């Protein structure tokens, strides 16, 4: 009931979000790197069903901006309108690097522009950047969490099942990792890396770094469960019947860690999304002009941007809701695990 609702709703929302982000190229009206240099810091475009004379339009329209010559000061020119068009052709994009297309869900014809979340200081569409940025931010979180949990599962079960010297060695390593001042470490790391790194390389490196740093906690949790599971009577019995080690692990021990792994995933993913954002915010993530949520938010470091252009904060607010969904999901997962028959 309520348990399943708190579980299903955030999960559905998150799945939808990931789906939208995968289809960023189709849904976003523009390429994330396209600079409309005549429109820096344009406020969100308002979409009208009624024109200035009160006439109703089934196909909504936008007004063109007119600038009075001052920097980033715009007024809607009510004499010049452009209808919102659907399924029109625009910048080319690819979905998952496989399908190439130039069909966009919506857009307007030049010289009008549609900036649903406004534009940034280069005149780039914030909405398009948010969607494309999600590809980096959300998936780096997912992949890094996958890496962390994979490592945690492998090393944690090895430590718990084998015990002895291996256990001691691995557990001391996790402690060492937990004690690292990782932010300073990363700052130092960046200085040693080569200058020529393509965005794809940086992205993979980012995932590797974030993922590698967080496996310790997962490993400790898995170890604890494996340690107690291997002493259970039915495991001992199975061993007595001549089951192989691999069979025991696969059939009896590891399934017990499922709940912990899932809960950890729901906790780690938003944490790692935040980690990517922090790194990009500090200039250690994917470089411009590639969009990521951290890159988008780093513009807010400037006092003038913060005070003058409120729409620059919108990606941050959207981000809060995304992270919140993940935490709600984690909580309900935890409840389910606790109330599960295991």
């Amino acid at each position, binding site marked *: 009931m309520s348990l399943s609702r708190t579980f299903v709703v955030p999960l559905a929302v998150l799945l939808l979000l990931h789906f939208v982000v995968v289809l960023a190229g189709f849904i976003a009206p523009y390429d994330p790197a396209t600079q409309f240099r005549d429109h820096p810091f344009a406020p969100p475009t308002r979409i009208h069903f009624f024109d200035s004379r009160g006439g109703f339009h089934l196909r909504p329209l936008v007004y063109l901006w007119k600038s009075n010559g001052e920097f980033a000061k715009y007024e809607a020119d009510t004499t010049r309108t452009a209808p919102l068009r659907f399924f029109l052709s625009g910048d080319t994009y690819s979905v998952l690097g496989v399908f190439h297309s130039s069909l966009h869900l919506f857009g307007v014809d030049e010289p009008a522009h549609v900036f649903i979340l406004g534009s940034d200081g280069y005149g780039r569409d914030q909405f398009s950047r948010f969607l494309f940025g999600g590809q980096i931010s959300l998936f780096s979180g997912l992949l890094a969490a996958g890496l962390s949990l994979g490592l945690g599962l492998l090393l944690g079960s090895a430590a718990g099942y084998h015990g002895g010297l291996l256990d001691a060695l691995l557990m001391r390593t996790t402690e060492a990792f937990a004690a690292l001042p990782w932010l300073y470490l990363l700052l130092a790391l960046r200085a040693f890396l080569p*200058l020529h790194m393509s965005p794809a390389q940086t992205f993979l490196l980012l995932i590797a770094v974030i993922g590698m740093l967080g496996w310790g906690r997962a490993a400790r949790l898995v170890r604890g469960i494996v340690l107690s599971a291997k002493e259970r009577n039915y495991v001992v019995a199975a061993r007595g019947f001549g089951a192989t080690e691999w069979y025991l692990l696969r059939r009896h021990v590891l399934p017990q860690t499922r709940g912990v792994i899932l809960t950890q995933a729901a906790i780690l993913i938003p944490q790692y999304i935040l980690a990517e954002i922090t790194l990009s915010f500090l200039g250690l993530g994917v*470089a411009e002009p590639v969009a990521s949520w951290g890159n988008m938010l780093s513009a807010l470091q400037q006092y*003038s941007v913060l005070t003058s252009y409120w729409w620059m904060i919108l990606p941050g607010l959207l981000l809060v809701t995304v992270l919140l969904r993940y935490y709600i999901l984690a909580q309900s997962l935890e409840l389910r695990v606790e109330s599960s028959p295991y």
Partner: protein
Amino acid sequence: MRAIVNVLFRKLVAFICFPSVLAFAVSGPEEFLVTKSEPGTPGGKLVIAERSEPKTLNPITALDGPSRNVIRRMIADLISINRSTQRSEPALAKSWTISADKRVYTLKLRRGIKFSDGHAFDADDVVFSFQVYLDEKVHSVQRDLLVIGGKPIGVTKLDQYTVRFDLSKPYAAAERIFDSVAMLPRHLLEAPYKEEKLASSWGLDVAPGQIAGLGPFRLKEYVAGQRIVVERNPYYWKTDSKGTKLPYLEQIMYLFVPSEDAQVLRFEAGETDILNRISAENFAVLQKNQQMRGFKLFDLGPGLEYNFLLFNLNDDTTGRLPETARHQAWFREQKFRQAVSTAIDRNAIVKLVYQGRAVPIILQVTPGNKLWLNEVLPKPEYSLAKAKALLQSAGFRWKSDGRLVDAAGQPVEFSILASASNAQRKQMATLIQADLKPLGITVQVVPMEFRAQLDRVLQTHDYDAAIMALGSGDVDPTAEMNVWLSSGATHLWHLGERQAATDWEAEIDRLMQMQESETDPRKRKLEYDQVQQIVASQLPIICVVSPNILVGAKAKLANFQPGILDHYTLWNADELFWQPSR
């Protein structure tokens, strides 16, 4: 013999004879300088934010901006450059004469002047000061400036108030080199100098009584991590036309506020009185309510700072950097540099990065330097078609996917370093990256901590290109010698050249050296015009924009005359005063 005597400043002040009559009998009348500025009312204090603590109060070793800003208020020089008119003016020297061969300068000192501790100043202090600066063991910052044609200038005392300076060759900007060269108190510094402890004296821990100068202010207190306060020097040697002794202000307090945004907030809240230089964005933020909050903002137009894209043209003799060496084949091609320059939309940079408060440039001489700019040279041009034609004629081709490849078929890709803490330079790099994309050039922007960037540019030479800025301290071309001479310490694109690597660099060397010793101003201008012409066509660095100098001050601060030469706002701190409220 041509004598330059500044008549305006020579009138003596009718001195007030009160308790110091005896002193006058000994040292003669005090030859105070009478300023032309509006007479003011004494009193009050001024608060200004400095981005960090000074590292030292020692004028001989101070290198960093904050230290120099504080020290500059406590010292005086023989001849000063007026930051507002950009011309030289008498300071501690009341007049000077130049010999016919332009090699001997004879300076007359003001009589009856005292250091801030009350000790008299005369020719012995001048000789001592120059002895210290020119001593190689002292490693003074000023030494390079005072070595002309490879030989240190000779300093001789003629009498108690006359000093002769001998130059090894005629030097065009000779009187300008005296600007900001502090006259040191021999009575305080001779002992540490003899003990070779000069570099470590006058650190931040110095007691106010142990440090003295001839500037309008003297040290009052230093609170580590918070503030440094200088107070009015009662022995200062200027008065206004009404005979009031300068400076008017009782104190200047420097607060340490690390970021510009924080400085702007403090100023907006009324906690500080002056903003020495701010970005265009913050200028726009403050502009909204300047009237209500009682401050004034000034856009002084382009300064002397030039921002540029620097290509690494250093020779990699060790073979450590094969990748960079491969890229350098492109960078060394003049047409490649011209193509990049033509593809950069400088007007977009002016608009998006500086909100229109900057000017596009193609040269190191900015429109702010009206005396020396070569006006004949064309303005920077933006044309993709021309850039493509240039690349094509240099043997570059385009692949079917639009990527540019060189004659060997290698794709043209390089990275641009930009200081991570400087929003403007990061933005500039991102815009240039987008500008070069239509040419098929892939550019990676690498934001990097400024010191790490400097290390790569100056030491390891492990970089392709970088966005940097240079700003001269003076309008005179001699101030740019260290950048344009191929052996110069700031010859950034090719450091440590033993001899000029190219013919055009050799030609720049020749012209720069000629103008240095040329004394006919018209000929000097022609020679420097030629240098500018070579720079504009060879583009050793690709100059992009020169930002406007933007400053602010409380509206009640009178005699506020900001200039485009550093220090923009406090250069005439002795004349500033608070308008009494009515």
